[in-house]
């Protein structure tokens, strides 16, 4: 990065760090600039990567065949219906575009989660117990799995055996959350280290490059 770019990046970095003290004009400026540039960037990306190849080319500029025009027209019409929501009375027709969109992603989700979440975890969970001492760990994993499932049971109150199982389940949950929390600290601190290195080395040249 050139010197000017480094100074701009350093200024914006400090604007965000100032949020730790409290909400202030520098943070507010950086926030509003961030939202504006991000919105413009994403809009331009969608225009270049989606609108031009899938709407502009087949319908206007590019080579047309009746089939390509028809295939490009349907999504374009649904898209325009979505866009028409700008005017309140067009909220009704826009429901067709919403229904199509929700239908697509519900239809993807049902088999997708069935395979990727349910069956993938089940086929992992049914692996035979590890030999020797490992069997204790396998038993603990099974116990944890069953008790956490018991905790998530909706149609039975947490009472009696089911209640005891659910209680053990919460202990497994808490240990799992504690482990996951502690495990994440290093990744977050790494990000802070690289920002502080950017300020101390690239901007202020206080740390030698290795």
């Amino acid at each position: 990065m050139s010197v000017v770019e480094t100074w701009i990046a350093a200024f914006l970095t400090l604007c965000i760090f100032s949020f730790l003290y409290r909400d202030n004009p520098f943070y507010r400026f950086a926030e509003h600039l961030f939202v504006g540039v991000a919105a413009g960037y994403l809009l331009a990306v969608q225009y270049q990567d989606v609108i031009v190849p899938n709407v502009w080319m087949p319908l206007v500029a590019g080579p047309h065949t009746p089939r390509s025009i028809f295939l490009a027209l349907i999504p374009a019409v649904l898209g325009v219906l979505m866009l028409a929501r700008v005017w309140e009375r067009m909220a009704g027709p826009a429901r067709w575009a919403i229904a199509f969109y929700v239908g697509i992603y519900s239809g993807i989700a049902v088999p997708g989660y069935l395979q990727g979440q349910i069956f993938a975890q089940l086929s992992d969970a049914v692996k035979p117990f590890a030999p020797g001492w490992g069997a204790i760990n396998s038993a603990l994993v099974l116990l944890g799995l069953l008790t956490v499932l018991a905790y998530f049971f909706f149609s039975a109150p947490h009472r009696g055996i089911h209640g005891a199982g659910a209680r053990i389940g919460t202990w497994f949950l808490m240990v799992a959350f504690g482990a996951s929390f502690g495990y994440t600290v290093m990744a977050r601190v790494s990000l802070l280290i690289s920002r502080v290195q950017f300020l101390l080395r690239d901007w202020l040249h206080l740390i030698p490059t290795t």
Partner: protein
Amino acid sequence: MGAELDTRWFDPARTNLLVGLLLFLTFLAINVLRAKRGGSIYIRPLAGLKALDEAIGRATEMGRSILYMPGLGSMEEVGTLASITIVSRVARKVADLGCSMQVPCYDPVVMAIIDGVVREAYLEAGRGDEFKPGSVHYVSAQQFAYVAAVSGIMLRERPAANVFMGSFYAESLFLAETGNLTGAIQIAGCDKVTQLPFFVCACDYTLMGEELFAASAYIGREPIQLATIAAQDWAKALAAAMIVAAIALSALGHPELGRLLHTS
């Protein structure tokens, strides 16, 4: 060399998934019929949703608004679909009490959907004119630009309650910790396991994983919706039983059941 064009009308490797789907549909059908015939369906209380009711009431008394964040998932994330079903019930409660709700959105399609949902809720509650256009608004489809803007809203507009419902990622801690600073009551529901520890630590109530999906049925209390939760429980019991059976059988030298669950 042209790749071999697949002309099969069914992928046999996915038979087990089809069986699973049909089983679930059967559980769903049985329970929905049970509900239609007036069978009462018990569902254990969810503390987070009781707190949500109270939070809406308190916000109304204090004349302050509710901040509802539908998550940073696009429609590919089912947590987002769950959040939409939840906000449709929350909006109705908010409209009934004449409270105000702001919904900053990450995904533009979700914004269009929720805008329609909230507008409709106010109409149904007979307060069509009280709906503030722009209360459901797009902020940014970039993760941390969204976080920067919503943190600003939390600190400057001081909503009485922050409601996080949907798929959240690394930003969950940023939003929940900033919200905690403002003293607002915070209720979260998230399906992303890695983010649950942060919501549990920084929010007053947290709906964990599957509880996010059950929430919309809870708030609405419609019998048919509760029936779908019962269907989920039946499937869960079946899954637990199959795991135990498969492990026991494979220990006795018959790993077939386990292999049935294998997916390509």
